[in-house]
């Protein structure tokens, strides 16, 4: 057993030092009826070769995104990650360290988090960002809970453009805390509709940009309406590359931004791990969930970094904590910050323009197909398309032909009555040939 260093001689000698007759003596507190006499009915230990072969075989059964034309988005976006990023996050000192509880020997992690927080604050246009949450959907749920704490109110209004999984995650968390989630009907242009739903009992409005249909919306008027009613505006972003081109949440009046950062540096990973970005206005910081890294000095006056404002957190505040979060998404946050450091603001802007250009290319290629309707008027890199028939069936048939055409909306929200809608996304990894192949296949499927 290659990961267990003790030899039988070690074990015998150590038992003697301990003063135990045998290993079973150490488990004496376990009730007799619960002691397993022998190994369970599972395979015995396996060599590296065998494990690699078995898991490799499972992996080989999947059609990976890069194996052909690929247009899936809907909250998980496939972007290129520079090789150096993946190398850096595999450094032992990052990969195999713990949460930086001993700051004197964790400055690497802490400084990277401080840089991460600064980057996220700049991207979101807000004052303060935390050291990451699990993912965008849980960040959205935490934002709803935070807004309820800040305002002392019990209703969150979610636009119909919020990713249905995000809405579901928020509703789950809110339900037990007695916060009501009012989700408006799913529609391409549903962000503006939240204005009518603002009222004196509303803690926050939650809008998404681009929304789940890919639509880009000016949110300032929504912020004004929310603020006039004493509510906060939470802006959700699922495609982090859009930060390079689109107006930031803060610039449009957001009080809290909850975003999925996996598009930068992290990758698809079949949906996890991803990395939640969370930022807010300075005056709200003490209600923020999650870890925060702050600057200070050491005993010799040198600059250094520590986890700070910890009294918000569960290990001190226990049942009065702002959240139960302990672990965040540290290594994924490191991947995000390293990739963004390589890009720089200008590089991110170029990358975003390239994505938008690809999006326009996709819309242009589909426009001639008469039986399709491009539903999203202003988009970044993803569009909703209405098909003449069940989108899920058409997507399945195209998959059989080697094209992953996108995400049927019914997969996200089966009850929305949008079974004929598919979400199609392109990125810098999508080629002109991919787009041509999709257009041709769709034209064949639906009849041009």
């Amino acid at each position, binding site marked *: 057993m290659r990961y267990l260093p003790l030899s039988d001689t070690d074990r015998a000698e150590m038992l003697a030092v301990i003063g135990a007759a045998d290993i079973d003596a150490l488990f004496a507190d376990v009730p007799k009826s619960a002691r397993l006499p022998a190994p369970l009915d599972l395979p015995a230990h396996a060599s590296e070769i065998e494990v690699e072969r078995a898991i490799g075989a499972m992996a080989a059964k999947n059609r990976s995104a890069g194996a052909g034309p690929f247009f899936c988005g809907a909250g998980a976006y496939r972007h290129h990650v520079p090789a150096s990023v993946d190398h850096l996050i595999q450094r032992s000192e990052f990969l195999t360290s713990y*949460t930086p509880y*001993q700051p004197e020997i964790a400055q690497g992690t802490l400084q990277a988090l401080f840089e991460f927080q600064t980057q996220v604050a700049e991207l979101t246009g807000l004052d303060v960002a935390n050291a990451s949450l699990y993912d965008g959907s849980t960040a959205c749920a935490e934002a709803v809970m935070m807004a309820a704490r800040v305002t002392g109110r019990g209703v969150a209004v979610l636009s119909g453009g919020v990713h249905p999984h995000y809405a579901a995650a928020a509703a789950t968390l809110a339900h037990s805390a007695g916060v009501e989630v009012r989700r408006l009907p799913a529609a391409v242009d549903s962000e503006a509709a939240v204005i009518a739903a603002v009222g004196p009992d509303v803690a926050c409005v939650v809008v998404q940009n681009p929304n789940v249909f890919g639509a880009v919306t000016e949110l300032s008027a929504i912020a004004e309406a929310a603020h006039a009613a004493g509510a906060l505006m939470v802006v959700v972003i699922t495609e982090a590359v859009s930060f390079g081109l689109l107006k930031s949440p803060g610039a449009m009046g957001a009080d809290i931004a909850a975003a999925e950062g996996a598009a930068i540096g992290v990758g698809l990973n079949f949906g996890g791990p991803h990395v939640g970005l969370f930022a807010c206005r300075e005056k709200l910081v003490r209600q923020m969930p999650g*870890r925060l890294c702050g600057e200070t000095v050491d005993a*010799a006056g040198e600059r250094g970094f*520590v986890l700070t404002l910890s009294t918000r957190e569960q290990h001190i505040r226990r049942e009065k904590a702002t959240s139960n979060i*302990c*672990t965040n998404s540290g290594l*994924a946050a490191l991947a995000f910050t390293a990739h963004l450091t390589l890009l720089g603001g200008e*590089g991110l802007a170029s990358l975003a323009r390239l994505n938008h250009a690809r999006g326009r290319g996709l819309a242009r290629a589909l426009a001639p197909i008469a039986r399709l309707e491009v539903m999203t008027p202003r988009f970044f890199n993803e569009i909703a398309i209405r098909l003449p028939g069940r989108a899920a069936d058409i997507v399945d048939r195209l998959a059989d032909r080697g094209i992953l055409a996108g995400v049927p909306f019914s997969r996200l929200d089966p009850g929305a009555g949008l079974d004929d809608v598919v979400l199609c996304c392109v990125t810098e990894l999508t080629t002109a040939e991919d787009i041509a192949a999709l257009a041709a296949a769709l034209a064949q499927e639906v009849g041009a």
Partner: protein
Amino acid sequence: MNAAARTRPAEPVFEAEHKSALQQDEPLIFELGRIGRTGVDLPSTPVGADWDASDLAGLTRAAPRLPGLSEPEAVRHYVRLSQKNHAIDLALYPLGSCTMKHNPRLNEKLARLPGVADLHPLQPRSTVQGALQLMDALAHWLQTLTGMPAVALSPKAGAHGELCGLLAIRAAHEARGNPRATVLVPTSAHGTNPATAALAGYRVVEIGQTADGHVDLADLEAKLHDDVAAVMVTNPNTCGLFERDVLEIARLAHAQGAYFYCDGANFNAIVGRVRPGDLGIDAMHINLHKTFSTPHGGGGPGAGPVVLSAALAPYAPLPWIAHGPEGFALIEEKSGVAAHAFGRLCAFHGQMGMFVRALAYMMSHGADGLRQVAEDAVLNANYVRARLASHMSQPFPSGFCMHEALFDDDWLEGVGVSTLDFAKAIIDAGFHPMTMYFPLVVSGAMLIEPTETEPRRELDRFCDALNELAEAAKTGDIERFRAAPQYAPLRRLDETRAARKPRLKWTSEA
């Protein structure tokens, strides 16, 4: 900025192993990089003359004001930063309750296979059969190892798993018309337990501890009534002891119609030797980053699947994996068999990247090896405990411990060295300190968890160092402790200043 090499004390108080000569001061990227610089060459395919943002008029921003670095500069920046971290790959990392064990690199390799890492969560199911098979295999291992009939894979970390378990419990009570109001939590619990219970809408009532570090059964029984939704107990507990009355705890809880939630953070102590399902447990999260060695990564990402008893299984969150006529299926809506699911905890299906690593770890060890994992973890902890017992005091000295050894600060009484000073001096000896001041029920607690992947030589090196330090403390070499650490990248940090005037990001005025 701090370009010059740091001045070291001219005469170190003592000689320690250190490599500080290789350590570089490293500015922030905002001080290194330039606005407008980029270290990524995008495809030459021009965004082109045909690109414009006229369709987004009024909706766009100028480029974010973030500096970029060329690839050589970026690589050097992060490698220099990395050298300021302690890591399990450098030396024993005995953080009690955190389980810092070796992270096999095979697992990293497998998690990066395109058929795993480059998969979209919403691809047609026919194109991800291998991924669903892998999740199903992981579920089978977890169910078998715990003796529990169901598992929810989607929780993203241990605390998220606690929430999952309590929400399933809440849903089960609600299905009978009353969610109930209270959750009982021992005073020794991880802070996440009461925080999670509060998040799940419950009032937290603490239950006390006996003089020998176990749940106080009499107190539990007194506080159990028909408005208690769950009893939430960590087993093995945070004092490193197996709750020997666990069957009675389960019986008492069930007699009042309450569920028994177990915090499985310490499952690594019993895996392969004890099945939680045989202990009357209804729900337990498993930190894949602890027991099954997915890397901690400086604070995540983790994964916290929750095993559930038959009573709670119907309430497990979406999605569910099912075996259908055309292979594996994913149930993503509340209907059919999943009609009672309590909802969705997060987008998509959970931490796939961690599932692969954990499965590789399980397959590598096998049923026999996992049992050995628990035995060696417990053996190593007891060995450290025995070797330190002559120098440090223990709150619960009788019998044996499980996977971690708990000491207190009685032995430092009158010495003039605090638990914190002692911990910082351990840094100078080349190790990461143990968990300090936790569990809260023990004064000046020091919780040491060596894990099963430490060779005996490293355990001896650590025990020798601690015993030497303890001796130095007791013989009055106080300054060495108060000044510690002296051989770390930084001296002791001013946390008060950080909290009084929070500076949470870099600004150009600084």
